[in-house]
């Protein structure tokens, strides 16, 4: 039934997903994801339960915990409309750099939670020589002091920069699609969707793991949200971080309302059914959109990775709350080097 909706064929999309995704491991198509996104609140608990079953079958019970830190904050020349770090908007976020000792301290803090991943992020179009040098020094210092995998997110890369990051020992690179192709021009105008894809493909070919996700709740239609899920599935990243818009003062999306919690959870489950074998991470905006109960519902609805502690410019939950919840749900933290 490729290309047809469950509605058009008179079948129930959750029955279809159970047989197709849970039974055979075949991801939902874009049209099927759209059917899931259109299910009512009365089906939400059934949907989350199915997504949880899929996650357990193809990814197991463990949860990957990661910390993130901003190496270079603010002053970005790009105009991603959700981002407070763009230099093109009247956001109150000022430009600031983290020094190496502080970077190592942040990695140690993260590792102390049991996290296996530490991602270094910079608000740039792409790294310049200064940033690459800072990365080389920082990654080496972290590896000498902390037992943790190092990931990076530095914008668009050249092939030479990809090779340099591999040489440094960066094992995963984050570069989000942010939105489905048809909605992307409403979100970013300073670079193209294809430029993003180019970096993603270079990263995959390099042997680094690709972390590639997006944001929802930016005013996209359900069709465009399903499009994002399908385009991510086509790219087959190792990890998909799912962000919910946290409207930032001074940005073009600053006055949008936060997503409805049920809508956000439905999106989590739909993405899991489109990406059964991918790490699906709760990323930014979950506290604002979903609160404490939403974290639990998401972990029981397809999520199998979290960002622990604070984000790049905003604050997250106290890690003890997340770790206690994982303990209560009997979801072990993924050990360093463990694969799903």
């Amino acid at each position: 039934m490729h290309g047809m909706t469950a509605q058009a064929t008179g079948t129930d999309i959750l029955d279809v997903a159970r047989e197709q995704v849970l039974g055979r491991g075949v991801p939902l198509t874009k049209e099927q994801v759209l059917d899931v996104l259109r299910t009512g609140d009365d089906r939400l608990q059934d949907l989350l339960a199915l997504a949880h079953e899929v996650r357990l079958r193809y990814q197991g019970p463990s949860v990957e915990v990661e910390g993130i830190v901003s190496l270079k904050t603010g002053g970005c020349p790009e105009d991603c409309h959700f981002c407070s770090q763009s230099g093109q908007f009247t956001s109150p976020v000022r430009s600031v750099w983290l020094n190496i000792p502080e970077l190592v301290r942040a990695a140690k803090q993260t590792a102390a939670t049991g996290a296996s991943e530490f991602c270094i992020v910079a608000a740039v179009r792409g790294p310049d020589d200064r940033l690459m040098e800072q990365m080389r020094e920082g990654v080496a210092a972290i590896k000498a002091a902390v037992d943790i995998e190092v990931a990076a997110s530095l914008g668009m890369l050249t092939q030479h920069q990809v090779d340099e990051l591999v040489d440094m020992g960066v094992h995963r690179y984050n570069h989000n699609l942010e939105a489905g192709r048809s909605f992307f021009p409403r979100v970013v105008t300073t670079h193209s969707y294809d430029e993003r894809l180019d970096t993603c493909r270079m990263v995959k070919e390099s042997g680094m793991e690709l972390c590639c996700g997006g944001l929802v709740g930016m005013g996209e239609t359900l069709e465009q949200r399903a499009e994002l899920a399908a385009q991510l599935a086509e790219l087959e990243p190792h990890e998909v971080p799912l962000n919910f818009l946290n409207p930032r003062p001074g940005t073009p999306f600053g006055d949008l309302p936060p997503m409805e919690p049920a809508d956000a959870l439905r999106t989590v489950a739909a993405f899991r059914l489109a990406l059964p074998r991918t790490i699906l991470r709760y990323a930014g905006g979950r506290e604002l959109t979903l609160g404490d109960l939403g974290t639990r519902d998401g972990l029981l609805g397809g999520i199998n990775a979290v960002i622990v502690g604070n984000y790049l410019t905003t604050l997250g939950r106290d890690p003890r709350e997340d770790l206690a919840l994982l303990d209560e749900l009997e979801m072990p933290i993924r050990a360093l080097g463990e694969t799903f």
Partner: protein
Amino acid sequence: MVADAGTPEPVPRVGDAGAWCGQCGEARDDAAGHDRCAARAELEPPRFCVHCRRRMRVQVTPGAWTATCSRHGSVERSTWS
């Protein structure tokens, strides 16, 4: 408290109470109130110095944040219990 003659008034620090809202940078006695700012403060560090309204340099790390005003110094807060 009145300082002794010849003793400079202590400069207020970023962490002290001040006349401006650290979240939106408007006056604290603004009739519009700061309910949204108070809610926002749960999820983000201050961006404006409460004494002079300057935008601060703010560094967020997984377990803490540091906000620095060029005139009134820095404040660091741990966000992990």
